[in-house]
């Protein structure tokens, strides 16, 4: 790519100099400056152009009133103050937190259960792995959300099935008490990715510990909690961080299942959906930017807490 040379720094490749014993020559220390910057030039352009500068710009916009068509008007912290008294915003925060703290554990528990079941040297392992992974790949698509809506609607598949047992099912999508749980269930359905990661981790566990435990007569549940789970804690940690970040950003199912409204009565108004409605529905770009920054900080805080607590419960080998 020809842009590579554009961002290359003025530091020329170091001429060969005799080794100096006292201070290592700075230029000598980095042998491949020119090549290195040439290879990362596209990424550097991208990270400044599409991430760092936009982040700063977004921070500025969050302090303005901005409708895209006219110049931003400085309003200071107004947007942030308004957030605190916007009942729909607070509802979105509540719904999102409930979604994150229920869907992530559900997904990881399913992933771990299936991974442990698959890790018995079963025949057809490859088949199981692939089929269990498929929903994770399809999960974010509009089509799957459409399907979900059909399953849980009043005349949907689930109620048809419940009818066999004489149970009169609710209107799962249309009832604010249940609508969000169908989204949590949809997230649980996509446990394939963490399952694959758990499975890879399980394969690397030292077998001698299990043999020792078997000699001691430890039961399977005991072995799971005293050997498998602690040894797997780095994988649990990794999946927890990843899935939490993903859960905070969920958009498509909430949008499709509620037909873009977050309804019924805002029961599925996930954070990102409200951000979209504010920013692109009513063109309150400054307000939406403030929302985006709060989301960024909250995800950062969650991640920081995970990393801080990791020292207590994550066992790294060695």
């Amino acid at each position, binding site marked *: 790519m020809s842009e*590579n040379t554009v961002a290359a720094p003025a530091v020329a490749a170091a001429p060969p100099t005799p080794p100096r014993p006292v201070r290592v020559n700075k230029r000598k*220390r*980095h042998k491949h*400056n020119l090549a*290195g*910057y*040439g*290879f*990362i030039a*596209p*990424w550097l*352009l*991208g990270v400044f152009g*599409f*991430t760092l500068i*936009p982040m700063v*710009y977004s921070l500025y*916009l969050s302090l303005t009133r901005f409708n895209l068509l006219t110049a931003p008007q400085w309003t200071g912290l107004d947007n942030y103050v308004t957030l605190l008294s916007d009942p729909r915003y607070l509802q979105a925060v509540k719904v999102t937190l409930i979604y994150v703290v229920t869907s992530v554990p559900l997904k990881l528990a399913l992933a771990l259960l*299936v991974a442990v*079941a*698959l890790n018995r040297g*079963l025949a*057809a392992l*490859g088949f199981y792995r*692939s*089929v*269990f*992974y498929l*929903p994770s*790949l*399809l999960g974010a*698509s*509009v*089509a799957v959300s*459409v*399907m*979900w809506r*059909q399953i849980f609607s009043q005349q949907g*598949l689930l109620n*048809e099935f419940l009818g066999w047992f004489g149970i009169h099912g609710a209107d799962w999508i249309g009832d604010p008490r249940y609508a969000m749980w169908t989204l949590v269930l949809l997230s649980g*359905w996509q446990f394939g990715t963490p399952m*694959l990661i758990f499975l*890879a981790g399980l394969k690397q566990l030292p077998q001698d510990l299990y043999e020792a435990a078997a000699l001691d007569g430890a039961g399977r549940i005991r072995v799971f909690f005293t050997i498998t789970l602690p040894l797997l804690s780095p994988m649990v940690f*990794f999946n927890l*961080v990843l899935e939490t*970040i993903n859960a*905070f950003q969920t958009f*498509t199912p909430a*949008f*499709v299942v509620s037909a873009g409204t977050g309804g019924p009565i805002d029961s599925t108004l996930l954070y*990102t959906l409200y951000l*979209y409605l504010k*920013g692109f529905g009513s063109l309150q*770009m400054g307000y*939406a930017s403030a929302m*985006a920054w709060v*989301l*960024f900080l909250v*995800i950062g805080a969650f*991640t920081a807490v995970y990393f801080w607590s990791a020292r207590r419960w994550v066992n790294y080998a060695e």
Partner: protein
Amino acid sequence: MTARRRIHWRAHTVLLVTLIVMIYPLVWLVGASFKPENQIFTTVSPLPLEPTLANYFSGWTATGTSFSVYLANSVTVSLCVVVGNLISCSLAAYAFARLDFAFRRVWFGLMLGTLMLPFQATLIPQYTIFYRLNWINTFLPLVVPYFLAYDAFFIFLMVQFIRGIPRELDEAAALDGAGHVRVFGTIILPLLRPALITTGVLTFIWTFNDFLRQLVYLSDNTRYTVPLGLNSFIDKASGSSYGGMLAMSVVTLVPTVAVFLISQRRLVDGVANTGIK
């Protein structure tokens, strides 16, 4: 031996039941798309008793623009993003994994940091930038960032992979006088193939299924991608034509599933070994 086999049978049974429950909705969706409108919700059975293609015919053009247009748009965007990701991410990964340059650790740390950044945080500023560039309602905002390695996830994946390639190989080539471009092109890239395949397949599927970005950037019917086409179908039909909606849902899933089936063994191994979303 028998005890062991019995355990396996039990595991198989539990797994199979779980698997059937999980896959049932998808099977039902496909079956229902071939049922006449009035039978879709009256039968739990996924098998259409009187199979018909009517839903596909009625759904294909129901939004005013043919689904063929949406499919062509989606494939164009997705393939461009795949090419962009493969080129830009492999270049950066080579530098991070093998080259020694000033501030490498700083840049590498920054790259890892962007992995945790919610994409919504940059959505609005990016939108205003593209708006100023007059790129709204073109494919450029969906494609250009990926030629600049926007998706750091794949850089990370490739860095990890390159670290597993013995250094002796490229050091030998360098001793023979090969420059970095040659080492990268003739040694690293061929060995990187498994990671490139994983990247390509996942990029294709994720881009094809992506909704929010396409929803934000594309506003003209003829520029719509498949997810937008399906979404506008829902809006238009608003419950009146379930059959067409389900049929078009199946249509939007077909390319993803096809790519998955072709690549599944490698893809699943790749995901398992690199721990990616």
